[in-house]
Every structure is written in C-alpha cells, then in structure tokens.
C-alpha cells in the first residue's frame, strides 16, 4: 500500500514537469524556466536502493536504504532510509529508533581510522591498520605462548587459553558470528560472551 503512495509521489513529480511544459507551449517560456527551477528533483532519482534490516532491535524491521556517490569521496554513501513496505512484519513502518538510523551511520562518534592508546598515555593516536593488527597479533601470541594449557593435571588434552576474552557483538551478522566463533575457539578461548544476557 505504501509502495503505491511512493509511486504516486513519483508520478506527481513527473506531473509537475509536464505541467511546466504545457505552460511553455502556451508561450510562457520564462515562466516554465522559473517554475522548473523551483521544482526540486525527486531526491531518490539518482540513488541505488538496497533492502536491509534495522540495526537495533530484534523485530528486524525491513529497511529500504538509498545510496548515492559522495561528491567528496566518490564512494557510495547512504542518503535516505525508510521502512520496507514489502516486509510482512513492519510493513513500511519504523519506530523512533529505526527512523533515525541514517544519523547512526554518520554519527560524530564514528571511528574513522585505527586508533591506539599507549600504556599510560592520555590520548589516542592515529595508526595504520598494519601497525594495529601486527601489534594485536604480537600481544596475543605472546600471551598465548605463555599461558596456553595443553593438558590438565590428569593428563587430559584440554587445549585452552584461559587468559584471553572475547565479547561477541549481537548486532553482527550470523556470518560474523561464525567467523568469531571459529577464530576465538580455534585459538583456544573459553572466555566468550555475547549480549544474550544483557
């Protein structure tokens, strides 16, 4: 039903253009130009649409996410989000959280580049991805080498790494969840938790 409304809006946009042309045909060329200048282009015309779901609660409302290339970076960035009218659960609606999701994507708190705080330092500094990943891998290996337990007191193979923890995000995809499981358990971690309890 909402889909019809947006189609209607689309037609109204076209309708305005047709009206202008009709005025032009009657010899009001200047009026046409002036009028055309006041009509804003339908802002989703040049966008690409993708179907997504809300990042917040587990109702998982369907979203239609519209993107366009950024003038600055040339990369596809989101310009508009609305509820997915086809989704049988939310049927085009979004609540006050979901309706503001665009502002989450462009939050002033977005972490832009890898940041690193040295021991005792009073600020973060920018570092490269390579530096951050290499340092983290080194720290993890050092600790795993020192604290990994291969067998317990009874000689049972236990292969565990008790000194490292992983808090796994419950807003991540199933695919991220599995890669997280595979890596964390694969290394031997037991301290693993997600947000199911909180």
């Amino acid at each position, binding site marked *: 039903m909402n889909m019809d409304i947006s189609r209607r809006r689309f037609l109204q946009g076209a309708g305005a253009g047709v009206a202008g042309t009709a005025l032009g045909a009657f010899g009001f060329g200047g009026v046409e130009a002036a009028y055309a200048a006041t009509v804003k282009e339908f802002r989703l015309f040049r966008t690409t649409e*993708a*179907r*997504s*779901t809300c*990042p*917040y*609660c587990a*109702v*998982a409302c369907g979203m239609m996410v519209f*993107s366009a290339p950024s003038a600055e970076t040339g990369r596809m960035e989101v310009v508009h989000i609305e*509820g997915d009218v*086809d989704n049988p*659960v939310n049927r085009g609606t*979004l609540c006050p959280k979901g309706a*503001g999701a665009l*502002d*989450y*994507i462009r939050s*002033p*708190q*977005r*972490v832009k*580049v890898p940041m*690193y*705080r040295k021991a*005792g330092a009073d600020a973060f500094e920018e570092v490269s*991805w390579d530096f951050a*990943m290499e340092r*983290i*891998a080194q*720290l*993890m*290996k050092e600790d795993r080498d020192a*604290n990994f337990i*291969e067998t317990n007191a009874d000689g049972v193979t*236990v*292969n*565990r*790494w008790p*000194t490292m*923890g*992983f*808090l*796994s*995000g*419950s*807003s991540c*995809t*199933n*695919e991220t*969840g599995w*890669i*997280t*499981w595979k890596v964390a358990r694969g290394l*031997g971690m037991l301290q*693993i*938790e*997600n*947000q199911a*309890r909180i």
Partner: protein
Amino acid sequence: MTNNWTDIQNADIVLVMGGNAAEAHPCGFKWVTEAKSERGAKLMVVDPRFTRTAAVSDHYAPIRSGSDIAFLSGVINYLLSNDAIHTEYVRNYTNAAYIVGEGYGFSEGLFTGYEEDRRAYDRSSWEYEIGEDGFAKRDMTLQHPRCVYQLMKAHFAAYTPEMVQRISGTPEDKFLKVAEWVASTANGERSMTIMYALGWTQHSHGAQNIRSAAMIQLLCGNIGVPGGGINALRGHSNVQGITDIGTLTASLPGYLAMPTDAEPTLDSHLAKRAFTPLQENQVSYWQNYNKFYVSFLKGMYGRNATADNQFGYDWLPKLDTTYDALKMFDVMHKGQTTGLLCQGFNPLMSIAYSGKSVAALAKLKFLVSMDPIETDTAYFWQNHGEFNDVDTASIQTEVFMLPVTSFVEEEGSLTNSSRNIQWKWRAADPYFESRRDTDILADLFLRLRKLYDDEGGTAPGPIQAIDWSYADPMAPAAEEILRELNGRALTDLRDAEGKVVRRAGEQLAGFGEMRADGSTDGVQWIYTGVYSPEGNLSQRRDNSDPSGKNVYGSWGFCWPANRRILYNRASADPDGKPWSEEKAYVFWDGQRWGGADVPDFPPTSNPSLRTGPFIMTPEGTSRLFARGFMAEGPFPVHYEPFEAPVLNPMFPAIRGNPAARVFDNDMEIFGDAEEFPIVATTYRLTEHFHYWTKSVRYNAVVQPEFFVEMSHALAEERGISPGQMVSVRSHRGEVKGRAMITKRLQPLQVDGRTLHYVGLPLHFGFVGQARKASPVNSLTPPVGDANAQTPEFKAFLVDVTPLADPVA
C-alpha cells in the same frame, strides 16, 4: 519466540509482562494492536510501571519488581484449584502424568539435595520412577499422589490471591482479573500469547520467571497453537542468531555443548548425550546429536578431521568452568586476564557494578574495541570527572579502537526474534577506513597462524588444523560463510537401498541428511536448509500468506526447517484433529501431517503411535516438572531479589535464590533495606537503543539526558521538586540526574508496608552526544540468574536524596 511477530494477530488474550513492547519493540507491537482491532483481543499488562504498553491495555495490574514468580505461581494455583486447565492437552502433551521418585521433596523453601556450602543442589532426587521396561512410569488418570499434576497442586497451593497481594503488592481484584482472563484460554478454542523481555530475565531467578510463564501456557494448552506461545521479544538485532551460533562460554553452534575436562574423548562426550526415549515410540530428536556434532567438526576442521583423530575433537578447548560476562569481569578483576576483544560491545556500560568493571579493565595488558563508533569502554582510561573518575597515567592498558563498517556497509544474514533468517544487501561502501568484522578477524587469524608457522610457539596444532579454505582467505564472503553454516555432502550420500540421495559437493536440504561418519559437514545444524540446493533461502522475499493465517512461509528462512510455530503438532489433539476449527493449524489428513506450516513432527507418523508433539524431549511431552534441568529446582519458588525491601514472606530465612552464584560467597556486596529502602529498576526509552544512540545526534536531541523517575508520593516524602537534581545511591555507587515525577509509578503495599520505587533509564554514559551521566550500572549488583547468569538489573535497592535547592 516459539511463535512469531505476525502470529500475534491470532491471539485472543495478550499478556505483556516483563517487557514494554509498545516502547521497546514498537513495530512488533503493532501485531497486538491488530489482534485487538481485528479479533477483539484483550491486552493485559503486569508491570511495576504504567508503561505506554499499559496505557493501551484493557487491564493493567501493578506488581513489585522481583516478585513475578509469586504472581505467576498465583495464576498456576488459580488454574489448578479451579480446574481451569486444558485437561487433554495437559494429560497427553505435558509430563503431568509422570510419577516422581520417592526421594523428591520440598520443605521450608528448599528442595531435596541442597548443599549450602556449594550454594547448589544434588539434583538426583528430582527424577521420575522408571519401570521395569526402562520407560518412565505414568498415571494417565493424574491421581497418583506422586504424579507431577498432584505434586504441582500441593506445591502451588500456598500462592493464594492474598499471598500474591502480600508479596507482589498487586491488589487481589486486579490479580484475579488476570487469572480469569488467562483461564478463558484453557480450552483449545481461544489462545493467549505471552510477550516478555529483560524485565523477566534480569533477575537472580530470571529463568524460573520464564518457566512459570511456560507452565501457565502448557496448562492452558497454548504452546504450539496460533496466537499462543511464549515469546521473547529480544534485544539486539541479531541476538537470536548470535546465540544460535553460540558465542557463549559453554556453547557450540546449534545448542551443542562445549567439551569439558570430564569428557576426554569424543565418544565420552557423545555418550552423555544419548537421549534414550523415556516412552515407547518417541522421537527424542536429540538422539541425532552425534550427527550434528561430527558435521560441526567436519566444518570446523575440514579435511583434517578424520574418524582416526575423533574428527579433531581434541583441538577444541575443553571447558574447566563457565565464563559468563559477570565471571569474566570477576576473573579480570583478579588480574588473571591479559587481553580482551570487544566486538560491538560496551561492557563498561552494560555489565553490572561498573566500579568493578573499570578496575578490572585497568588490569588488562590490552583491550581492543572493534566498533563503528567510539564506546565508553574504549575510553575507560580517560578521566571524565564524576562520571569516570580514573587516574589515567597509572592505567597501563594498551587500547586499540578499530573502525568497523556499519550495518549498511556489509551484507549478510541476521536472525530476528521470530527465528527468521533474513538477508540484508550491502547499500554503501565502507565509510572512512572502516573494515568488515569478518575481514578484521580473517586478518588477525592469518597473521597469528603465520607467526606460528614462522617462529613456532605453544600448541600451534589447533590453529593449523582449522579449515580456512575461503576463495579469498583475507576476505571470506558472507554467502560462502552461510553455505558453510548450512553444510553439504562430502561424498555421495546413499539411502538404505543404496540410491544416491545427495551428490558429493551438493548443499544439504535439511539437517535430517547429516551423518555421523564424516560424510557431511555443516557447522550450524539448526540452520541447515537456509542455503539448500535451491540457493540462499534467507534472500526470499515472497510476502504471500497462502493459508490466510498470517504465515509468511516464503519470506526468509525460519529455523528449524522453515517452521514458523514450534511444537505445532500440539495444535491438534492426540488423534491429529485440530482442537478447534478456529485454531486449526497443523493436522493429520489420514496419510500425512500438513496445514498452514511445516509440521514439527515426522511427516507420516500415524497418530495411533501416540508419538508426543515435543519431539526434542525423551518423554515426547513438555515438562511441567523440570527434573534436574534447572539449578534451583524442578518447580519455581518465590525467592526475593538479593537486595529486597522485605524478608521473603514465605521463607524468611532464605536470602535471594539459594542456588545463585555469589562470588566468593561475599554477601557484603549487597546493601540492606534499612540504609537503602527504595526499590530501583532499570528500563529502556523508545527513542534510544542501549548505549549506541547516545552517540547519534537525532536520538540525543529527542532524549538528551538521564533522569530519575519517581512517584509524587516519594517526591513529597523526600522534598523533591520536578526537574530537581537528585542523587541515587546504592551500596556500590552513585548516579545523579533530574527528578521526573510521574503518575506512572505508584507506591505499593507490600507485606504490610508502603514501598517506593525509582525507574532509571539505562542509556546514558560519558561518551557521545547526549549529556554525560554516570553509568546506571554503577548501582547494580554483580549477581546473576542461577541458570543463565543474567544479571539482576531489574530489582535492587537504593536511596534517593535531593541535591540542590528545589527549582522555583
């Protein structure tokens, strides 16, 4: 959820308790509104606060936070003593007829087998009597004095309406109206859905809250039927999926278990999970555990997993003890943890007793935050005055903040609270220098593996054994990973006659195809079918409803096996006939099971076999008596929160849940009612989501700051004016905020005294766009549910005092 969002429209009665769907899950709550307007359904809300859900209800009953079991047990007592139960359902589909052994008993608030020093039970007496044929004994007339039905009648008799009023503060007439409306559904003609959230789980007896509700639904015959069910609304967008995957200390994907020290071999692990049926002709589906386990190991270790090396069982870590979040921070606080990776997680805000959390984080050698946005946790070392008063220079923790793509910058699947796995398509390029979680983890894993290859180290074997055969090892694709979750045939699979039913390399169409001999893989058996030979079914977007019962079976893929309502065989009577025309859903047509949904039953199993509808249990029935599966007892009991304003009116000698873990048995951590006489509870605002949206401008504008909600009566007693700054202190910390004085909170009469409340929204902290506040969890106690370790955020004690002069 046993049912699903759109199914709520089929309900006649909706009970919302321990949740506030109208504000926390607004677009799901619309299905309650539909049920009301389309069917004339009645909504009742039981909550300490007159929430917006209560505001649109047909009946509201107030309740003291932390006393849900007394209330629900009162409903159970009402149903049993008025014989307002769906008798045939109860007789055939629950364990009401099962006879419990003579050793079982309950007195003075404790079940048999309690060991006080361990704060735990020896649960061996909580079992059925087994007959000579090896099956559990039953009395289908429900008359045997030790059958579950009779034990229940005795156990719940104490929870009279007067007792409910005394403990819960709910006026008797308001309680009775709830009980009567519940009872109106105990007939197969009408159904009730129960919707809950963290208001039920975040208690030291949270799991028993939910069990109590499930028992009510079973007594009424409301499980497995349209418009029924016990429905967890759930928080984060993929908390269902991530729980299914099992990134929890004791879990493997699909609710399989981690190996423990007591299970040195794969066979010893599997032997404990044989799940032999307790009655004739029962499915006891967990008998297939070995097939799922071996297929998991084949997925995890690929070619390296062989029958000769127990399919790699030894490479998995073995659990010595469980490490839930509370335990993790306790261990960290003791200085026993070196590093912590936080993925989309802000534990400083979300874990109980943040004073302890910040001290614990300061003992780490390193902390890594992987998140699209900055978190308070990543800044735990920074001094924010009263909001985070730390000595930065003395904190030696190295901290990394890695930029991760936001939800629109990646594709993949998420599982909603209705168990529906839905695909989302990528809508934008990564912003700034952000990378996907999977790419970051692949990078980390491959670096570590290379370090072990190049320089050796402790136990490289388990790392080298992992199967990482992605097309681009540095960037596994989401589709590829979903296929891995689903599983495939590794050799040609043949049926008993030798006919090939699945070619080597083909995706599996269902978990029924999995084998225990290593010829299939698939790490997440409950999802098998989502990426079948037909393709990626999570991408399906057909929103038709062929049965007209609000079942959208071709939208996404619902686990297990695309079933939209669990246990749906129970929507028909033992002969396979629908209990009523109105609620017809899945039934026997003489040849097969069919109907509006995928039957939760063997498709050609004749009803005359009397196979029970709860195919996962060895009984074939559901359990009113939980046997040894619950830490604090086979039946729910009213236990007070650890910080309670009154002594337990039923069992005054017992503090809190006797089987809940208290670290180092340290009762000093709890405050008492003399010093802290006011009950506090945390809650969510409709404009905010957890601790993220305080960093989102739009949300911070509409709800800019922390506040303290209280009644007019409390404000008057304490001399507090609207908008005045107040201090809220618990035994562990203090927060400050403006007083919001409302009629939504009213004092309650509990056990002969007037009890006051404050409500505390949980969304605020010291990082972001909203006004700074101390974490609400600086107040909360680090004690959790005895089974799930969900922290007790919903009932604790505080005192409230005005801070500055009243505003004019």
